[in-house]
């Protein structure tokens, strides 16, 4: 059974009486215990997807979907309160900016205790003990001291550890990490990622890692979804995407990664996709990548569909890259 199954998710934002689609016909299937990476440029709708799954869209956005199945129950069929409660027991999210993900007005201990009490852990001693266990698990060295502090007294990395610790309360089945390391120092990034996947190992949960950093996904994920301008462009296993990217956009993303040492060809220039991601007001007709794609042909003014390709995965393109060679 799949952990998360989304079919035909549309999220639209009202801009001056026009509905602009931030996410269009978005479908996603994720197995239990899977590590899924979602990659895309800023403004591609990655974070909106995370918010949509967690039920956090602001009220000027509209969400429609055939169904959104989270651990066996369809979120679309639930009332608002039921849905909130259900999500709180099944899923958790970690945000990009660690200093903004903890409430600046309350001590760490107060914030942990509040969530603990929601999960039926009561009693001062028990709470304290549990809180220290939680902080221990995310490798915080002096948990007693940290508990007494306010978020602003901790560094970004520490804040993110605390945020991860709080997310783990209640053992969620799904953890969404929305660029969890982007605003951290490089050395801290590796630590936090390691920590995140350690947590996954111990508590058997599925994890969605959202990032714009392809190399990060290469090592850490089972499957990768490539998102562009609100659409899933390619969804396949990590190995397949890294070795044979079928979508021109995936290839462009891979080509734009700097190669170090031996793999670097002397004198070669780093590849850069021309142009920029279209704004919501002027989304191009047909394939959304059209204006930027160097393989674009006349056919591309018709919107392509997400098609399955044998031995690979799903691709949204009229002329996928490796297909012709195989024929």
């Amino acid at each position: 059974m799949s952990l998360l199954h989304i079919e035909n998710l549309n999220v639209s934002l009202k801009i001056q009486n026009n509905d602009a689609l931030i996410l269009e016909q978005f479908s996603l299937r994720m197995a239990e215990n899977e590590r899924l990476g979602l990659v895309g440029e800023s403004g591609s709708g990655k974070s909106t997807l995370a918010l949509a799954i967690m039920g956090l869209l602001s009220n000027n956005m509209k969400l429609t979907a055939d169904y959104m199945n989270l651990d066996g129950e369809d979120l679309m069929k639930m009332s608002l309160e039921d849905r909130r409660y259900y999500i709180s027991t099944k899923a958790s999210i970690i945000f990009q900016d660690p200093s903004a993900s903890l409430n600046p007005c309350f001590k760490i201990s107060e914030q942990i205790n509040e969530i603990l009490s929601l999960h039926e852990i009561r009693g001062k001693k028990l709470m304290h003990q549990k809180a220290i266990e939680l902080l221990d698990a995310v490798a915080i060295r002096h948990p007693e001291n940290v508990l007494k502090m306010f978020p602003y007294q901790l560094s970004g990395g520490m804040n993110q550890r605390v945020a991860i610790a709080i997310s783990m309360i209640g053992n969620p089945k799904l953890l969404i990490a929305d660029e969890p390391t982007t605003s951290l120092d490089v050395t801290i990034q590796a630590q936090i990622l390691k920590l995140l996947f350690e947590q996954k190992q111990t508590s058997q949960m599925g994890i969605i890692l959202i990032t714009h950093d392809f190399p990060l996904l290469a090592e850490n994920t089972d499957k990768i979804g490539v998102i562009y301008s609100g659409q899933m462009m390619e969804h396949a296993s990590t190995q397949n995407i890294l070795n044979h990217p079928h979508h021109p956009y995936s290839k462009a993303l891979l080509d734009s990664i700097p190669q170090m040492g031996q793999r670097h060809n002397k004198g070669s220039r780093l590849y850069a996709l021309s142009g920029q991601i279209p704004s919501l007001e002027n989304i191009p007709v047909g394939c959304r990548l059209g204006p930027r794609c160097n393989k674009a042909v006349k056919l591309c003014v018709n919107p392509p569909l997400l098609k399955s390709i044998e031995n690979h995965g799903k691709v949204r393109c009229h002329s996928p890259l490796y297909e012709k060679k195989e024929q």
Partner: protein
Amino acid sequence: MFRIFIRQILNLTSSLLLLCFFTFVLCDYFFPNGLSFIVSSDPLRISESGFFSQSIHFFSRFFEYLNKLLTGQLGLSISRGNNISDEIINYLPASMELAIVTLVFSLSFGLWLGIIAAKHKNKWQDKLILSATLIGYSLPIFWWAMLLVLFFSLWLGVTPVASRIGFEYDIDVVTGFLLIDSLLSPRYALDAFVSVIQHMILPVIVLGTIPLAAITRVTRSSMIKTLGEDYINNAIVRGISDFSVTWKHALRNAFSPILTSLSLQISSIITGAIITESIFAWPGAGKWLLEAVYRRDFPVIHGGLLITASIVIFIYLALDYISMWLNPKLRDKSNL
């Protein structure tokens, strides 16, 4: 905390000294005659003998003046000959009562409306509240007061036109706050209390309209900003109830701009009190001050200005403490 306290005391003293110096220079320059009414208990004798004249050095005059103020005396009224400190004690509670009720009214409704608007951003509720606040913000309060009197008192006859309480009630002054005093005097049971409230409704609405509009707007914009923060999203996702997210997690973080606006509204309430009291014949300090202006009773104006400004200074201090209490980061910063 101790260092903050010391610093606040220093701040307070310097503000008060500055204020006294300011009022002294005003008096000294414009009304040297009036000054002798403030400084002496027997003004006529002094101004005749020229004891407090320009021949004495400026600073020794200033210290004489300060000395007098420190004993809690503000001199005598020129037109009535009364002791000004006693007059203030007579008139101030009425104004304070009006101001406090107005503050409670505008703050509670302002927070409530602001939060409703923020939660329904860009929906009809929000638009309705926003346009209502714009209208409230633009009302000249003297006109607004007359319209309300015309409608509710003269046409509908539901509220009284003027004064603090019906003339048939004779309440002993205990605290000066009629809301409390009327309950303390057993003679009229609840009737007197009801009468006090009836008399209070219109002045409070008139005085509270602008602060209410301002607080609603600030609450709305600050709450919209805070409700979009990640920690609020986190709180929602982790299953904390809607009420607790709004009133505990979000409002506390959104509160510091509201406090800033509140401190500005204190001035607006005092300004408005002068006008409101004169329209509703409310026997408070504002009306008393305005009458002194008509009579050009300078020692009274001086006393009124001094007291009002000191009250404002103390309120600012209190607001400082509240914002420090609400925001741990600020608490720490001022420790450095």
